[in-house]
């Protein structure tokens, strides 16, 4: 190992500042959400209390937070499942060239770079012209998929680009059918990455704003509800909500990452056992 150069310490300091920049503001509102009942939106702290968190649990205080949370959670799960399934299917298809594959590839990229507000407006217009009601579970669901699917697919493309084909050949040589090969060889190998796709699917949906803006209908999702609050709520209850949903996101991220780590460890264990001929 080389000795650490002077630039290492400079860069490390820069990195530390960047992390502070990323997390500092969220920590600030985390602290401010414990503001005393008389306290305002900024420092100084006017006592320490759970007052604003209690406020959140009183329905009449502000909008329909818990209803919107339930909707966002349900929508996140729907988007997650569909994103994982469709991305795996798409990822497998793209391992070979097929007619139309590059057109579809550019469509996927386009889905990522087209400004969200256009998707929102366009889907809203279609539903309007067809005289259908926009609803978070139909139009909102579809609009969000145009954001989560490209991420899922790009991850799957990267996964399959690094996939060792000899595992599949071995399975085929042993007489496995194509479906058996997928079920017992390919899926177990890519499982940790699928958790990653699921994480993207859920969190991107749970936090999505612009694509849901005109497609959610009369029942808001949580980000829409929070955005509504920013214009008419001027008490730390907003921070309390922010702190809670950020904590919720951290719990979700943490559990997904734990699953990935556990899967990886299980794989490594099985691998080494097989190496010793124990199976």
């Amino acid at each position: 190992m080389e000795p650490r150069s002077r630039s290492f310490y400079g860069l490390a300091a820069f990195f530390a500042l960047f992390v502070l920049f990323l997390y500092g503001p969220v920590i600030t509102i985390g602290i401010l959400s414990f503001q005393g009942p008389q306290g305002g939106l900024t420092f100084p702290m006017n006592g320490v209390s759970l007052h604003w968190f209690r406020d959140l649990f009183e329905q009449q205080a502000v909008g329909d937070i818990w209803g919107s949370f339930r909707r966002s959670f349900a929508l996140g799960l729907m988007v997650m499942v569909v994103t994982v399934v469709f991305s795996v299917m798409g990822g497998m298809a793209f391992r070979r060239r097929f007619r139309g594959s590059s057109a579809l590839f550019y469509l996927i990229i386009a889905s990522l770079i087209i400004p969200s507000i256009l998707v929102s407006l366009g889907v809203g217009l279609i539903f309007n012209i067809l005289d259908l009601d926009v609803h978070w579970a139909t139009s909102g669901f579809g609009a969000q998929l145009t954001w989560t699917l490209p991420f899922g697919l790009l991850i799957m493309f990267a996964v399959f680009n690094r996939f060792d084909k000899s595992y599949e050949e071995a399975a085929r040589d042993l007489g496995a059918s194509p479906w058996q090969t997928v079920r017992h060889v390919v899926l177990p190998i890519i499982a940790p990455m699928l958790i990653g796709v699921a994480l993207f699917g859920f969190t991107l949906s749970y936090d999505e704003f612009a694509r849901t803006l005109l497609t959610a209908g009369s029942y808001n999702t949580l980000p829409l509800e929070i955005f509504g609050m920013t214009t008419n709520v001027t008490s730390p209850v907003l921070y309390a909500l922010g702190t809670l949903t950020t904590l919720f996101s951290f719990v979700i991220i943490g559990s997904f990452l734990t699953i990935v780590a556990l899967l990886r460890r299980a794989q490594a264990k099985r691998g080494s056992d097989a190496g010793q001929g124990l199976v």
Partner: protein
Amino acid sequence: MKTRKALDPDKRSERVSWALVTPLTLVLGFFLLAPIATIVTVSFWGYNEWSFYPDFTFDNYLFHLTSAVTWATYLKTLKFVVLTWVFCAVIGFTVAYFLAFHVQSLPVQIALFLVCTIPFWTSNIIRMISWIPFLGRNGLANSALISLGVTDEPLEWLLYSDFAVVLAFVHLYALFMVVPIFNTMMRIDKSLVEAARDAGATGFQILMNVIIPLTKPGIMIGSIFVVTLVMGDVITVRHMSGGQSASVGRIISNEISLLQYPAAAASSVVLLVTVLLMIGIMMRFVNIRKEL
């Protein structure tokens, strides 16, 4: 024994591929292509105070493109794009460079990388709001500056200003630079750096002549993200400028809230064309499919 002639394996595998991509093609067809086609169509329609109706008129475009507000807004948005891009690129490159070349153990690398990516999975709106107690008149930044004696009066331009807008953009989107740049850097063969060093290159020369050229694709992908996200922004500019600055996305959302859908559609088409032109220029420098 099979008597029926088996289907040509190439054809068969192509059919399997098509079947596999059908669901996602349907989703993108109905929720991406159809909406864009609808926007283009509706942009030629007419409207009055209470409804919009099929027509073929260029009025929406004429009004949008001849309005001084539009041009001023594009100029302003472009300014935000350039500033955000410069800061994101410098920060993203430096952070990725530190992670890829100066952190030597892989687990530490992964852990630090995750620290950088976790905010990406949390709410943008909350991350934006969190700047308010920091930048406000009585915020942390001002109290710190006053107690350090840098200024006597609280600085007014910290919050609800162009500064706040760019700061929020950089805060939200720097990750979109860090991730692709880190990804390309991790694939640079370390022996190239060693070869350059053996050949007598200084650290700075290695950076300029080896690492930056090899990292260009990652920088480009990150730039595409940052540029499109800032161009299409709807809430950050409005929120962080306290309603003082306009953005193209805000023009569109204002027209939508006034129910002037054909006008909003025309503005959207102009935005889309602008974004695609910018991407087209950037794509000339990179082959995305090779980068995965």
